[in-house]
């Protein structure tokens, strides 16, 4: 474990949504990084991982796009690259896996990129990165979260498939729980932690997303959680931005704040909720923030 070591430097691949719909994710990461002695070195001139659209349509493209990023990372002398978005993480890790295990694809991609692969790159999810730093998180958690009950939501791609991720248990994961525990919150037991939120179907099959979100939110609420902790911009968007539609379809008006895990860690450090981007949420976080006596944010109701 790297707990307790001096500053840690990792490559940083924000992915497209962290510059747009999930700006608060990046804001919160950048806010907590200094306190954790974590240096995020952005990969210069990175490009989109290709996401679902690439792997659904062209396998080679789905390896080549993230492979380019991995080559750039190697050129920057990085051993490990952190991809905060679970979907980007999956694509980068899958590409690295293909490079190492599928010689045919690896050589095709090398010729496409006109570059050869350097040393293998370790691709990190946020769960893996922060669970390596639980000691630091614990030591920086100065705000008592008052037995705050949270439901940790992994979604589908954070720990799956196991041969790609090679981290945590694909069926009974505990890494997010260990992080929120370090931050002072109490993870609840619930059974939808690994259900899919509908991911890339937000635009093309919105009804499916609403149906899947309904079951996740109901389970989280029934478990007594006061907030849902996520580690993926798509999950966040489907559960926060779509939450009003979901609640409406379920006839359930109890709001459930959906926080990025980095935001929760930031709150435990006593960081300003606005710095952590909590003002950008669609579900009003104020009642929740008040329960832990965090600062105020200005919230604008969804039209």
């Amino acid at each position, binding site marked *: 474990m790297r707990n307790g070591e001096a500053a840690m430097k990792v490559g940083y691949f924000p992915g497209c949504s962290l510059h747009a719909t999930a700006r608060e994710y990046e804001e919160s990461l950048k806010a907590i990084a200094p306190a954790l002695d974590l240096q995020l070195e952005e990969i210069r001139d990175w490009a989109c991982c290709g996401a679902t659209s690439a792997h659904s349509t062209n396998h080679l493209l789905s390896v080549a796009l993230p492979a380019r990023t991995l080559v750039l990372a190697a050129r920057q002398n990085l051993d490990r690259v952190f991809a905060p978005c679970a979907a980007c993480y999956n694509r980068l890790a899958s590409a690295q896996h293909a490079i190492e295990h599928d010689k045919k694809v690896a050589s095709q991609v090398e010729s496409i990129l006109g570059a050869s692969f350097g040393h293998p790159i370790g691709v990190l999810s946020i769960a893996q990165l922060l669970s390596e730093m639980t000691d630091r998180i614990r030591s920086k958690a100065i705000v008592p979260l008052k037995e705050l009950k949270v439901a940790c939501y992994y979604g589908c791609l954070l720990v799956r498939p196991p041969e790609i991720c090679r981290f945590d*248990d*694909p*069926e*009974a994961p505990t890494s997010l729980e260990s992080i929120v525990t370090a931050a002072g919150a109490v993870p609840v037991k619930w059974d939808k932690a690994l259900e899919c939120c509908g991911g890339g179907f937000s635009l093309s099959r919105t009804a499916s997303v609403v149906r899947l979100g309904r079951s996740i939110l109901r389970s989280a609420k029934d478990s007594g959680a006061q907030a849902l902790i996520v580690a993926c911009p798509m999950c966040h968007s489907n559960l926060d931005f779509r939450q009003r539609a979901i609640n409406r379809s379920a006839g359930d008006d109890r709001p459930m704040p959906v926080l990025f895990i980095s935001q929760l860690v930031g709150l435990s450090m006593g960081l300003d909720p606005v710095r952590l981007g909590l003002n950008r949420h669609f579900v009003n976080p104020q009642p929740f923030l008040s329960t832990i006596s965090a600062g105020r944010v200005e919230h604008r109701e969804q039209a």
Partner: protein
Amino acid sequence: MSRIGVFICHCGENIGRTVDCAQVAQAMGELPGVVHSVDYKYMCSDPGQALIKQAIKEHNLDGVVVGACSPHMHEKTFRKAAAAAGLNPYLCEMANIREHCSWIHEDRAEATEKAKGLVRFIVEKIKYNRPLSNIFIPVNRRALVIGGGIAGIQAALDIADGGREVILVEKESSIGGHMSQLSETFPTLDCSQCILTPRMVEVAQHPRIKLLAYSEVESVDGYIGNFEVKIRQKARSIDVSKCNGCGECTKNCPNKKIPSEFEQGLGFRTAIYVPFPQAVPNIPVLDRDNCALFKGRAKGVKKQVCGKCATVCGRRAIDFDQQDSFITEKVGAIIVATGYQLYWIGKEQESEILHGYGEYGYGTIPDVIDGLQFERLASASGPTGGKILRPSDGKEPKKIVFLQCIGSRDRAKGMEYCSKICCMYVAKHTMLYHHKVHDGKAIVFYMDIRAGGKGYDEFVRRAIEESHALYLRGRVSSLTRNGDTIRVQGVDTLSGEPVSIDADMVVLATAMRPQPGITSLAQKLSVSYDLHGFLNEAHPKLRPVETNTAGIFVAGACQAPRDIPDSVAMASATASKVLGLFSNEQLEREPLIARVDRQTCTGCFHCERVCPYGAVERFEVKDRKGNLIKVIAEVNQGVCQGCGTCQATCPSKSIELDGFTDEQIFAAVNAL
């Protein structure tokens, strides 16, 4: 100079048609060392054999070569004839000029030439044959049976009834095995205890069975007919000679809340206990890990913390200071019948190739139980008195989902094999449930129904048609808690529809696995085992109860998943093998085995490495004063099977296989 007789057989027309036998006989007669060479119509006939016998006497032959059919056909015949005439049978050999010559060639000249060559090989070879005598290995006509489940019990009783002594070793404090835990048995639904208990008692009372319960095999030396087995008798803390099984100690033990292994954790026992009322021997054992007295001792408390059992024991049979003891038994055969254990779906697994079921909660969801636990719930003598009740809250479950193939046929979990018995016992469970809870609903998720066996498929049909069990074909994706029910997320592949069921109880038909510790036992016995630890039989079809080590046999579920009838049949088969072996005082073996030249052996032990039987031992050569000169190889006559791999491997050619010595082969090759 040798005095060899050559006899060329016409085999009627079989050889004579294509081979000029007279010409062959004549050519052979000209070879140096051949003093007599004739051809005859049928060598194997009585007159033919008489010809050989007569010639041996008349010409004082010291070698006989019969050019005829395959030695597989008549080698024994001719050797017997030679022996009858006073010639050592191993000085008689055959040259195959029928199967390997006359039957496969048409050209008479070519075939005759070839026949000459073939016979010449053997003539040259036999000049170097030595008289050999058969090896006799004394047989210790007592058997060891390892494991006191139904297979071990059956084997022990059969051998003892056959008149031979048996030592039955059981690691638990009572014999009976898993069968004693079962409620009723398929396909007849007769009560397991009712049919098993009499056999257990019979074992205890049999004059020729020495029962060593609460004991384990420590080491095994020797070979067929002559095994020496060291057995560890674990400390029961009871003087067995004094205990009369009155049960006072058990009654008075203050610690009554220890989960009972026999009840699969669904009931409790005391620290000093008998696992179940019908136990044989009916002598308690003190579980030192859970005994207050021993816990106190471990903590270093000076005062004796408890000791109630000793106080109430009228016969002063309790011995807190008892130690493990060892005895050595000499036996001629060993039967392994160590049985099985059930796979457990938890996260921690005993080997790297196995994986748990995270999607079923790794065994942490209440009221998700396994098949043996259901047996205990259904058993009249079980923790619920035969009522089907949920372990969590004691409520009667109205909807039970049974899942088949848990672990079995699941490469992802590390067990690709079928456990064979689950289809049957799940059908039985649904029936028992239906009989006990009339308004209950049994739902079974299966993949295929494998009910091959007498009355087996009919039994499954009864479960479906009469007990109204609902069979859904498909695997379940996940089990999750849903309030106080269990959400079963499955599919019925026959209709193609996903199925979601909220069950009150889930019963997992988990895979059969060999007992823990089987591999270390197998290593002690030099018996091979498969990837999963199931012991390997010598031949899957023709030698199903023998192992690759002579004198060691397998019965029951230690060899592969087996049900009761299979296990019992195997057990009786091993018993008949053992009784056959014991029908003679000595084992007679052909003397075609390896021997070491002590002069030239350098002790590099290449032979030891290649010997498939572990027949090569280390022998210390000492001078007269007892100083060690060198350590060399020696062949154990009882173990060597005569493959000769050692000889081809030996760099200095210091080990020879009788019957196929280097000189013999060299001579044959030189005859080219």
